[in-house]
């Protein structure tokens, strides 16, 4: 463990990634996780504040894809017109995130990079089959690669992001016509709770159910997870009692919650069942 001694404030992705290529850099975006993680010790000696990198700000549309700059705040998600038009579930999730003060400071990129299994904003992005844009400095220029969000997380606080990579954006394709999505999270304190359990369900409404369904869970495994078995159980099916029952059994198999100070694994599994049914019902039937 070392201490932060130096400071950089780049204004372009090129500057930022070139600095990271040298190593020993700790990236500061919103800081809501970093301030607590630092507490006097860090993995690097240089604090690099990327808040002024213009290319990482804002929400833009490029053809069929919506690009959310890594620095877009959780608050921004509640007011941005492109988000409202293409993926209101992101705004719905943002509204349940922490408090107004945290929402104003916390960034989408930070929420993803922190790779917490409880990262609320990750859930709706998983429903949208979002890709994470990673940038690094290579051969004298910026090199980017896109990683599907589903494949980004490898463990609690861990991802496939390399030490010299910067998360610069997250993007998703405009959903198909008829796409609907919903989010719910729970815990005794409504907002400031680090989710005890969070659930997202999405799909295209059809035949009394959802086709091409997407289901995602937070706080019930070492990473946010896709509910692949739930998706398989409901894909294209009319949501009668049998199908829903099968979906709940599948949900139990998709998740692997632990017991901690916030909840026992038993209760988390119970909530997964209760909330999957509720969100599924709300989304499929409006």
């Amino acid at each position, binding site marked *: 463990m070392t201490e932060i001694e130096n400071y950089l404030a780049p204004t372009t992705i090129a500057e930022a990634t070139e600095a990271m290529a040298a190593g020993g850099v700790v990236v500061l975006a919103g800081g809501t996780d970093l301030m607590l993680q630092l507490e*006097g010790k860090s993995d690097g000696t240089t604090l690099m504040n990327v808040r002024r990198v213009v290319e990482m700000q804002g929400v833009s549309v490029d053809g069929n894809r919506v690009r959310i700059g890594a620095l877009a705040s959780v608050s921004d998600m509640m007011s941005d017109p492109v988000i409202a038009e293409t993926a209101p579930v992101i705004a719905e999730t943002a509204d349940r995130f922490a408090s107004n003060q945290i929402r104003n400071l916390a960034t989408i990129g930070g929420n993803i990079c922190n790779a917490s299994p409880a990262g609320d904003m990750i859930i709706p992005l998983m429903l949208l089959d979002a890709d994470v844009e990673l940038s690094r400095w290579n051969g004298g220029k910026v090199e980017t690669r896109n990683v599907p969000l589903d494949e980004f997380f490898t463990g609690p606080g861990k991802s496939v992001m390399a030490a010299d990579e910067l998360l610069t954006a997250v993007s998703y394709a405009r959903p198909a016509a008829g796409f609907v999505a919903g989010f719910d999270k*729970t815990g*005794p*304190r*409504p*907002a*400031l709770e*680090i989710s005890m359990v969070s659930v997202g369900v999405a799909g295209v409404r059809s035949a009394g159910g959802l086709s091409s369904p997407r289901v995602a869970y937070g706080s019930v495994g070492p990473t946010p997870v896709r509910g692949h078995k739930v998706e398989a159980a409901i894909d294209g099916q009319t949501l009668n009692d049998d199908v829903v029952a099968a979906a709940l059994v599948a949900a*139990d198999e998709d998740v692997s919650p632990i017991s901690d*100070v*916030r*909840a*026992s694994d*038993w*209760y988390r*599994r*119970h*909530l997964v069942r*209760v909330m999957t049914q*509720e969100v599924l019902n709300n989304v499929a039937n409006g």
Partner: protein
Amino acid sequence: MVDSIQKETLIGKAITKPDAPDKAVGRTRYINDMVLPRMLHAKIKRTDRPHAKILRIDTSKAEALAGVQAIVTADDTPMLGIGVNKDNPPLKKDKVCSIRDEIAAVAAESEEIALKAVALIEVEYEDLPGLFDPVEALKEGALQIHDDKPGNVGLSYETKHGDIVAAEAESDFVLDEHYKVHYVTHVCMGPSCVIADFDTDGKLTMHTQTQYPYNYKMDLAPALEVHPGDVRVMQPPVGGAFGSKLDVYPFEPIAVYLAKKTRRPVKLTFSREEEFIASPTRQPAQFHIRAGVKKDGTLTFRDIDAVLNNGGYTSWGATTPYVMMRTFTGHYRVPNVEFKSVAAYTNNPYAGSFRGYGNVQATYVTATVMDKLAEAVGMDPIAFRLHNAQEAGEVTPQGSKLGECALGECIEVAAEKTNFLARYNENAAEQDTPGRYKNGIGIATSFHNAGGAKIHKSDGCGTVVMLDDYARATVISGASEIGQGIDAVLTQVVAEELGIPVKDVTIVNNDSAIGPWDVGVHASRTTFIAGNSAKRAARKARDRILEVASKQANVEADDLDLRGGHIVQANNGVPVVKLDKMLRGLHFAGEDAELIITTDYYEPPSEHEGDNHVGDMSAAYAHGAYIAEVIVDTYTGNVNLHKLTAVQDVGRVVNKLGIEGQMEGGIAFGIGYGLSEEMIIEEGIVKNPSFRDYKMVTPPEMPEIELHFIENVDAEGPFGAKGISELPTIIPAPAIANAVYNAIGIRFNNPPITPEKVVRALMEKAGTMVAAE
């Protein structure tokens, strides 16, 4: 001059707090904000294990760090214990007995350096097995935590009244239940903080958050080998206290040791995590209660055995049975009661005093037992309670004289305001019908001392009232302002007596070198006792003023009054002379010059407990009946408390804003106790030392509150007022528990009633509880 001034009372009005404007603009300097010249910052090295021998402490690396000015360990101290049992040496020498134990402390030029130094202190331990369960701790052959406390037995209490054996024989139904109430903690918004400062003559000034500045000197001095008379206690504004600062805790003598060694002021502040780990908690307890009733609904007996988890050292928490007993013998009419309690040393954090002090724990039991007994005899919850409610003039077995006793009235008003019975019956009928959400309504009552609590040699408070040449009054009171609003009440009381505006009264109560003695702000005593003291001192001033004026005006003093800054004719309000003019005249009267300065020391007419803990230990008592309305989500287990109606006998409302604020704030504590607050302590380690994981009531969760005040004007209280602030922390939790029962037919003997507990209980009840699905 004006024509005529009518008598207008201030009592019952909404008076704003004198310190509120400064607080609203951020101008107030709390103790946490204070900086003194050349001040050092101190941090404590705490142990990371609950029970171990200390083999070696190496402070050499820490001492070498630039900016470190002093480090102290036990060897630098007289090793004298502090706390109620004097069993808590501020720095530990041979062993640690709980996770908060203090090994060493550093004073450095900055907080950052002090923290770095603490991290460099090396400690070698020999781990000892830990003892965490108080019942296990009391068993034969259990590990001994303190050599001088055989059997790990701490303080024990017992009281016996009537004949419970005969009473049991007469009972038609006997309830036999176990309860376990949990660790919660104060979570003052302002973390613990102290500044110790020696002057060149060796006199010590403590800038402290203490709630009992005078006895504090007595408790602090022995650990420091200074004379209590050489300790000056300054009380800057604090960010809450709620009972957490009614004892001397190790961090305060530690700051003194460092101040002495460095000869510079030393400020020691807790981090929030440290606050959770090292600040005293509320006393947890286990109760075995047997309670009997006749089929006509008459309570026959209560038999209680209690075990208290003392933790590693003893603070006020272990004395909460004093108050628990009062509840078990006096909450409703029960002539036959036996109570026994023992506190057992364990390797857990220790408990101190906390608003509600034992009555929170005991009323959770008695108020839910009342509900169960009512059901057993087939009486509705209101009729059953009214049947057993004491009436005016009754005295409890322990000698509490209940005076006017408004218990019955509180119950009736609460029931009427909420249409209780109709809704209770409707909800009960719906319990087993299909449906996700279940409504519940529940009632609980309690009583508490409302005229002080005579536990120390004196339960008194001193006041000095001074009038200046402008008819402005200064009130020097021994009673401390900790945010509870005694400052506003004292301005009101004195302004009322002297007929001057509230804004013309200044309260001084933050310097023990100036202020007269008060036993402390606790036990809901301050409006009653400090209020009476101030009222009597002000009345003496009034009497003297009118005596002088009567001679000057050649009328009887009884025919004069003080109103609107004037001396007036009492019968018609016609002014005789302006008060400030009269005071100046008196001041500059040459040989007969006089300043109006009066004093009073008010000792309430209560008794110390004698044998068997019998004695009328408070000058008044107050009752409350609260009704909780909940909606239980049977899918998630969430209990949504959407309304709380509180009916309380307050004697007389003095400050409308103050009394409502104290009720609403107390209720938030009670709700947290019942539904969500819990210190999760496993193997002596606090697992949730953060705001994120210790769940207090937040704005979205606060229910609608409806307050109703019963004003049975108390003969002894100032303008009839009684103490009020602890009942709101005591009554909500059992009311909620009773409401949850009404909703889903399940009782919870172990608060908090968390969603997970509700779901598990629902499944058990439905027979669908399986280990895994």
